[in-house]
C-alpha cells in the first residue's frame, strides 16, 4: 500500500493499468498509441515491489478511458495486468483482460515473403494459437510469431 502514496497520486478520471510485468510499461504505452504529445497526463511507475509479481510496472493515464480493443491489446504484452477505470477518484469498472481474436496492423510477420509485407494494401493480421506462452499465427502465410518476438517487436519500435 505504501508505494501508491510514495510515488503517484490518485487520478481523478482515467485508467490505471496495474500489475504490468516489470519493464513493460513503455510497451503498454506503445500499444495504446500514446507518444506523449496527446495531452494526457501520464504517470509511469517502473520496477516497484509487488507481492504478486516481485517487481511490477504501473501506468496511469488521466483523462483517457481505454476501449475494449485497447484493453485486449494490453493482454498481448502484459497478460498479468489489471485495468481499472476511474471516475471521481473511484474505481467504477474493473476490466477483465481477454485476448482479441485477431491482431491487426500492430505486428510484422516474421516471414519476409509474406504478402502482408509486400503489398501496399495488405495489413498484417494474426490469430491467437496459444496464450501462455503467447503464440500467434499469421492469417496469410501461417507463420508463427512467438511471445518473445511479439515483445521484441513492440519494444524495439519504442527505442
Amino acid at each position: 500500500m505504501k508505494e501508491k502514496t510514495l510515488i503517484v497520486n490518485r487520478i481523478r478520471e482515467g485508467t490505471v493499468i496495474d500489475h504490468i510485468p516489470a519493464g513493460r510499461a513503455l510497451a503498454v504505452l506503445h500499444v495504446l498509441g500514446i507518444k506523449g504529445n496527446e495531452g494526457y497526463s501520464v504517470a509511469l511507475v517502473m520496477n516497484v515491489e509487488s507481492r504478486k509479481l516481485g517487481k511490477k510496472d504501473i501506468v496511469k493515464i488521466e483523462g483517457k478511458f481505454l476501449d475494449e480493443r485497447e484493453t485486449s491489446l494490453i493482454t498481448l504484452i502484459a497478460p498479468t495486468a489489471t485495468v481499472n477505470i476511474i471516475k471521481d477518484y473511484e474505481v467504477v469498472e474493473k476490466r477483465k483482460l481477454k485476448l482479441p481474436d485477431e491482431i491487426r496492423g500492430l505486428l510484422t510477420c516474421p516471414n519476409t515473403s509474406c504478402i502482408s509485407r509486400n503489398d501496399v494494401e495488405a495489413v498484417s493480421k494474426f490469430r491467437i494459437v496459444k496464450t501462455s506462452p503467447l503464440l500467434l499465427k499469421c492469417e496469410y502465410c501461417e507463420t508463427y510469431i512467438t511471445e518473445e518476438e511479439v515483445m521484441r517487436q513492440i519494444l524495439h519500435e519504442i527505442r
Partner: protein
Amino acid sequence: MRRRSIIGALDLTKEEYEELFSVSDEFKRRGFSQSYSYLEGKVVSLAFFEPSTRTRMSFETAALKLGAKVIGFSGEEGISVAKGENLADTIRMLSSYSDLIVMRHKFDGAARFATEVTDTLIINGGDGKHEHPTQAMVDLYAVREVFSSPSNLVYGILGDLKYARTVNSLLRALTLFQPKFVYLISPPQLRARREILDTLNYPYKEVQDINEVISELDVLYVTRIQKERFADEMEYEKVRESYELTYETVTQMKRDAIILHPLPRVTEIDRRIDKTPHARYFMQANLAVYLRMGLLYLLLGEKK
C-alpha cells in the same frame, strides 16, 4: 459443393474430397476427347504472376473442356504485371471480367489476400512456399486411383519439406484421410515447419535416410531440393546427391508401392526408375486435368 474460394488444402471437407474424386472419375471415364458446356458463358481468369507451365495448362485445358472462356496472363507477362501494379488492383481488374480466378504468386498468403479484395472465386494455384491445394487434390486422387482410397497407407515424403508448398498442402490434406503412418524424410535443414507439424493428427516420424524406411512405404512422394535454399553451394550439392532417389533404393520397395512427384523434376529421380511399375508420376500428371475439371465443375458448373 458450396461455392467458395480454395486457398488451402483444408478448404474442402473429406466428403467434398470424395465428391470431387467421383465427379473427376466421371470425366475420366468419358475420356479426354469429350467436351462439355457446363461452364458455357463463364470466364475463367488465369493470373500467373509467377511462371508455371503444368498447373496453368491443366487449368486452362480443364476450363476449355468445360466450355468456359479463358483469359489472363502468365510467364514474362505475368512477371511484369506483378511488377507494374499492386496485387489488389490487378485482382480487382480481373474480377470485373471473370467468374473465377486461378492465381499463382510468389508471395506467401497472396491468394488469401486476394479473397479480401474481391468476391470473385479464387483458386490458389500456388502462393510462395505456403500452399498449392489443387496439387494435393491431384496427389490424393492419384493415390486413390491405385489403392482405391488414400486412407490407411504408409507414406514417405522425401526432399524439401520446409519450402515445398505441395508438401504443406499434402500433409494437411492427409489429416482428413487417416494415413497409417507418414515418414518425413529430409535433411535436417529442410524439415517440415513447426506450423504444419502442429496441425497433423496422424502418426509421423522425421527421418534422414530413406533407406531406413523404404521397405515400409506404400506411397513415396518425392520433391525437389532447390539450390536457392542453400547459402553454400557445396552444402547444396552434398544434400542434393544424398536425396536423389536411386534405382537401388527403389528395388527395396514393396511390390505394389508407388512413387509420385508433383513434376517438373530435374535430377531427383533416376530415369531408370521410370520404367519400373512403381513410377506413377506420369499417371498422376495425366489425372490432373480431370481433377481440375471436377473442381471447376463443382465450383462453377451449371447443372444441366
